[in-house]
């Protein structure tokens, strides 16, 4: 057997693949041509890479499907709000999904350009439980949830739970707490709620995307927590409503600021946005909203990119693509959001958001598309 043949074949392979790789080392040039940009009437053709919140991941994935026919390919990885912001700052993704607004510390780490954050959806953080024989609607308040997560309440038939639910037969199963192991915006929202009702929680584990959990099993992403709750009888975990519904979870009615036990529904989630304060940089927070009918653990979610993507190093197509995606999120995307059981944002917020998106520029000039 001629030894040159396999060597030559290998060399040819190497040459061919390296030519293919070098030939399009930019993300957009060839991928643009593989997308059918004719249908849908849009002239933008780009691949956008994003990462971040698993809370909002279902939305990004569905929107990606929606916009594929229009020439936009959106690759989104749910890695947690913390990782998303980190990767955005490092320049490995074009946009980030984050549930909490960008803190000043976060903004300081984004050195390539000024970020713009657009809140575009609200979602309920359910307290989901896997308890045989107990239906949805178990009444729990913030103090009880805090005690469960502190490890002070260890079984489901504890007096604190029974007193809030006199008509429900709670079994004596041990409570298995499930929480996030990664840096999570959902965690920040949930812990913010706990801190508001438990001074012990506030001074102890505190409020952050990533805390030291006193008890419980850790899992990655909203999907990981959902999987954890699903696997263990007696488990309780905080998951975004879409995940709870997808898996047929039973979840609690939580006591809100006005003292009423509210179930997470489209109405109670939307009600959380009533009367909230909209700061200059659009960094709202809807946790523990004051409304009488509001579900108390509602989180907002932001899509974050650069106010001037081109100055930050992204090319024209990407900048246009980003503007198109964000416009969609605020427009037809709001219907998609509802289909996935998230609540759309109120009009007052929408106008401010749209203004910020319209103000996005490419190297100083408005982005025409």
């Amino acid at each position, binding site marked *: 057997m001629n030894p040159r043949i396999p060597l030559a074949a290998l060399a040819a392979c190497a040459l061919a693949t390296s030519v293919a790789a070098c030939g399009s080392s930019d993300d957009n040039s060839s991928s643009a041509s593989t997308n059918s940009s004719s249908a849908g009437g849009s002239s933008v053709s780009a691949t956008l890479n994003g990462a971040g919140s698993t809370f909002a991941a279902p939305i990004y994935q569905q929107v990606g499907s929606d916009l594929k026919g229009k020439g936009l390919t959106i690759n989104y990885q749910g*890695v947690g709000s913390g990782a998303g*912001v*980190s990767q955005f700052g490092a320049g490995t993704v074009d946009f980030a999904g984050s549930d909490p607004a960008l803190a000043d510390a976060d903004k300081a780490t984004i050195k390539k350009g000024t970020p713009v954050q657009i809140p575009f959806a609200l979602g309920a953080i359910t307290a989901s439980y896997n308890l045989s024989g107990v239906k949805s609607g178990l009444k729990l308040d913030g103090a009880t949830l805090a005690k469960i997560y502190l490890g002070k309440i260890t079984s489901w038939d504890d007096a604190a739970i029974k007193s809030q639910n006199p008509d429900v037969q709670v079994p004596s199963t041990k409570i298995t707490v499930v929480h996030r*192991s*990664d*840096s999570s915006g959902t965690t920040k929202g949930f812990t913010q709620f706990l801190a508001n009702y438990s001074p012990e929680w506030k001074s102890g584990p505190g409020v952050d995307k*990533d805390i030291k*959990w006193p008890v419980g*099993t850790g899992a990655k992403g909203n999907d990981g927590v959902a999987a954890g709750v699903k696997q263990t009888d007696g488990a309780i975990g905080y998951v975004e409503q879409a995940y709870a519904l997808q898996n047929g979870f039973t979840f609690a009615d939580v006591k809100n600021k006005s003292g009423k036990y509210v179930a997470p529904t489209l109405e109670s989630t939307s009600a959380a946005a009533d009367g909230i304060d909209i700061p200059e940089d659009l960094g709202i927070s809807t946790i523990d909203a004051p409304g009488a009918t509001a579900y108390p653990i509602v989180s907002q979610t932001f899509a974050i990119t650069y106010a001037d993507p081109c100055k930050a190093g992204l090319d024209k197509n990407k900048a246009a693509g980003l503007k198109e995606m964000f416009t969609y999120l605020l427009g037809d995307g709001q219907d998609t959001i509802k289909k996935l059981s998230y609540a759309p944002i109120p009009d007052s917020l929408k106008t401010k958001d749209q203004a910020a998106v319209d103000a996005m520029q490419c190297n100083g000039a408005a982005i025409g598309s």
Partner: protein
Amino acid sequence: MATTSSPDVRRGGRSILERSPAARRADPLFRGILTGLAGLILVLIAFFFVFLINKAEPALSHQGVFSFLFTNDWNPSKAIYGAWPLVAGTLITAFIALLIGVPVAVAAALFITELAPRRVRGPLVILVELLAAVPSVVYGLWGFFVLIPKLKPAEQWFTDTFSFLPLVGGNVAGPNYFIAGLILAIMILPIVSAISREVISTVPADLKEASLALGATRWEMIRMAVLPYSRSGITGAAMLGLGRAIGETIAVTLVIGNSPVLGKQIFDQGYTLAAVIASEFGEAANDKVHAGALIAAGLVLFILTLLINAMARALVRRAENKGTKVKAVPGGLG
């Protein structure tokens, strides 16, 4: 005229065996290329070291090397990088893996070499090596969906019954140190078994036959002739297994729970150096200190595995040099 004719070795004034100037350059060129490739390996490894140390520096100067290794507080959100829970977790799971895996692997090696009928030997060897064909992520998948739920009742029973033992007792978490150690034990079986087999088969036949001739039973022959002779080789095999166990990432991160708090008993959740890198690199993308801490963890792994493997290979080579057969190849051939 009857001269012995020598073949006409001259053509154009030059011996046909002589090479043209161009051809003469081919040999040194070829040799040079190959030497260059070999040298490139050394350059790569040196570069590895230098680069990893350089990138780990922000974390190590922030935390201090000693503090990094021995502080029991891994809290990236507060910029505290005490990796002791990770180091301990790595050691605990590796220890469990060795405890379970080495005896089983050596038993299998002994059985295959000394006791199994000739015809069964081949298939048995192939079967044990098939364990190595299963990739890490598949072991993780299987461990997560099959082992964890199936073993939980047994673990609960064990921890309730034997709670007087140290490191046992309390709540059984689904993913825990023990399951991680068990999966690692399964993963190191093929390599420990293969090397042990090679070492055991280098025991000189006369030694074994002498012992049998003196009336030893089969087991006694193994105990008195085979095992003492192959002791250092088997130790080497176990160390290679250890090296493999501490570096294993994906299977472990799926079944250990990824909790940065050091567990108090073997059925608690934990973390290892390798698992933390896989879990947290995403968050560390833009944080030089966090990224540095993860790279420092990688560096610790790198150095540990280098040392362990170096010692292991020395032991195995020494054991094999006692016999006269062709050397085995540690590392998966065969």
